[in-house]
């Protein structure tokens, strides 16, 4: 099952390498990883999406991450009320006839067209993992030239609507 794990880390040299190396070494399969600065100087935030086969391996992963000297805090937010977003750039083949069709198809996804060329368009989409997957599947029949995904970034909602 997919787990979404966030980590607050000290922005020390090699910290990303330490963490990805640790996960690879212990046979955890990383689907995506995002890293960025926080508002606090020297502190970065990471979000991982990992595919784990048991609750026990999630616990083991968190414990191993916590052992890293530069890791300040680790949370498995999979089952919490979260906001999670990914950005994807998708370059799709177009022809005279298909361009308008694609544009109308993707319209409900609140995408942006970033670039239009004679034989392709580049779409930007932001959303949860399922929305991005759905859009990619939708335009696949037209022929995808290239996809670039940032990976998921996420945190826990402050005010739960439930």
């Amino acid at each position, binding site marked *: 099952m997919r787990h979404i794990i966030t980590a607050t880390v000290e922005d020390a040299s090699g910290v990303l390498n*330490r963490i990805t190396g640790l996960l690879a070494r212990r046979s955890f399969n990383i689907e995506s990883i995002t890293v960025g600065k926080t508002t606090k100087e020297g502190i970065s935030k990471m979000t991982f999406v990992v595919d784990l086969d048991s609750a026990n391996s999630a616990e083991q992963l968190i414990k191993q991450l916590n052992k890293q*000297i530069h890791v*300040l805090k680790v949370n498995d937010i999979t089952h919490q009320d979260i906001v999670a977003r990914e950005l994807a750039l998708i370059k799709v083949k177009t022809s005279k006839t298909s361009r308008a069709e694609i544009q109308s198809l993707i319209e409900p996804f609140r995408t942006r067209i970033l670039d239009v060329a004679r034989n392709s368009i580049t779409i930007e989409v932001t959303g949860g993992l399922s929305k991005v997957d759905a859009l990619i599947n939708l335009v696949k029949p037209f022929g995808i030239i290239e996809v670039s995904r940032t990976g998921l970034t996420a945190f826990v909602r402050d005010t739960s609507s439930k």
Partner: protein
Amino acid sequence: MEPYKNEHSNQTKTIRTGADLLIQSLMDNDVDVIFGYPGGAVLPIFDSLYEMNPSFKNYLCRHEQGLIHAAEGYARVTGKTGVVLATSGPGITNLLTGIADAMLDSLPLVVIAGQVSSAVIGTDAFQEADVIGLTTPISKHNYQIKNVADIPRIMNEAFHIASSGRKGPVVIDIPKNISEALVEGDYSGDFHLAGYQPTTQPNAGQIERVLEALTQAEKPVLLAGAGVHFAKANEELLTFLDRYPMPVVNTLQGIGALPGSHRLSLGMGGMHGSYASNQAIINADLLINIGSRFDDRLTGKLSEFSPHSKVVHIDIDPAEIGKNIKVDIPVVSDAKLALEALLEADAVQVDYSDWIDHCLAKKEDNPFWYYNYDQLISPQWFIEKVSQKTNHQAIVITDVGQHQMWAAQFYCQDKPLSFVSSGGLGTMGFGLPAAIGAQIGRPDDTVALFVGDGGYQMTIQELATIKQYNLPVKIFILNNETLGMVRQWQELLYDEHYSESLFNDGKNPDFVKIADGYGIKGMQISQESIVDEALEEVFAYDGPVVVEVMIPMKEKVFPMVPAGKGNGEMTGVKPI
């Protein structure tokens, strides 16, 4: 051993360079000895060592691997942090086996490696190696020093990290230009590691649950691991067993945590452990693991390891709890503090005497066994003889293989912090240099090294170190002219295909002559009838001795749990 005297100077030198600062930091961290080998990138540091007249002594080995195993031996028997200093490139790559070894066996080391100058890092410069890249997966932490002002802080952090929580090796990569950089002003060594705050105090609620489990149990077993030694909790363990007597099983690294001759000791458990130990764990209804990581050589097939027990796991490393074995009562704590907390609580009423009698009868009926020989020497009997001769109190060092298991089975170790063996990594070549470090760490103790003819040749050059410092290590080469453990598995599991495992027919050198060549007393013994006399001579001799003990090639380690099987399926429990 003579006390160290520095012949160069008696005056404290002023701190001029990064290298001076490094030496000063070692002194500030109460270092007694370091193990160092010079080379290009560390020349400034060795110059400071020469100039500064530090309060510690450097021991030169003959290979960097020798340095680090010596530091491991030192750390194991003293509980202090071992320090290693080597040059860049091949210097640090030669240390890698030892760093991985120390990581798996949780030994506190600070490893200082030289590096090429900052300006040429990343250009494939002469003797450049990516120390951080190489050591990240096998060290507890590592640093590259980028600024001379960071030296005191990084050194203090390294010693703190290596020696606290679950101990382990910390590597420091110091470029040559940083060692040479001039010091301008006072640099603070203060540090705060927000992300590293190991839990050492047990949770009171969990301690109560352990006591409750004690009252409910009828068949408890205590499993003593290396954590008891690291925490120096041996006295507390004895007190705990006085109050709550129960059978005790030890791991390989837990040998001596409880004296081997203690009434409640069933001996080592696991693949080559005692039948009584494995049976006790299998039939237990409560298993209290103090400071062992449920390693696969102990557990065998996990589902059959201790199927009926409630499991208490006391460990300083939370990641070990629940990693291999499902735990009912987790106690993240230093072993000593956990035992103290259990003893501070009001005593609960327990009586396990029937169960203890049952386990002790199993031990009595199924002892480790061996045969004696007219020609050649029984290795198990020989180790038992050495155990008696040294009153079960020598520091025992082993290499890796059959002799290691025989030493674990037949040396009845009564002293804590006195069994030194490469457990997790299983590093052949560990023994001889580890014995050097152990003897340096505890100069007044008798050090007995058991080593095979295979592993001995992996680090044999360290005989020169033993000679140079006149370390009175007693070296017993149990020579079966084969890689015994490999040969044993080939015999039992690979249709007697002895593929590259035999050293007979002149493939081994003359070990007595080699000892002689290094200026060390050597002898060969091949008959049991002269063993008493030989041991008398060896232990009376004031200096190192190499004893080549000729043992039968076909001797095997029994009993044994076949790989992948449960601990209930031991073979060779009775003489075969």
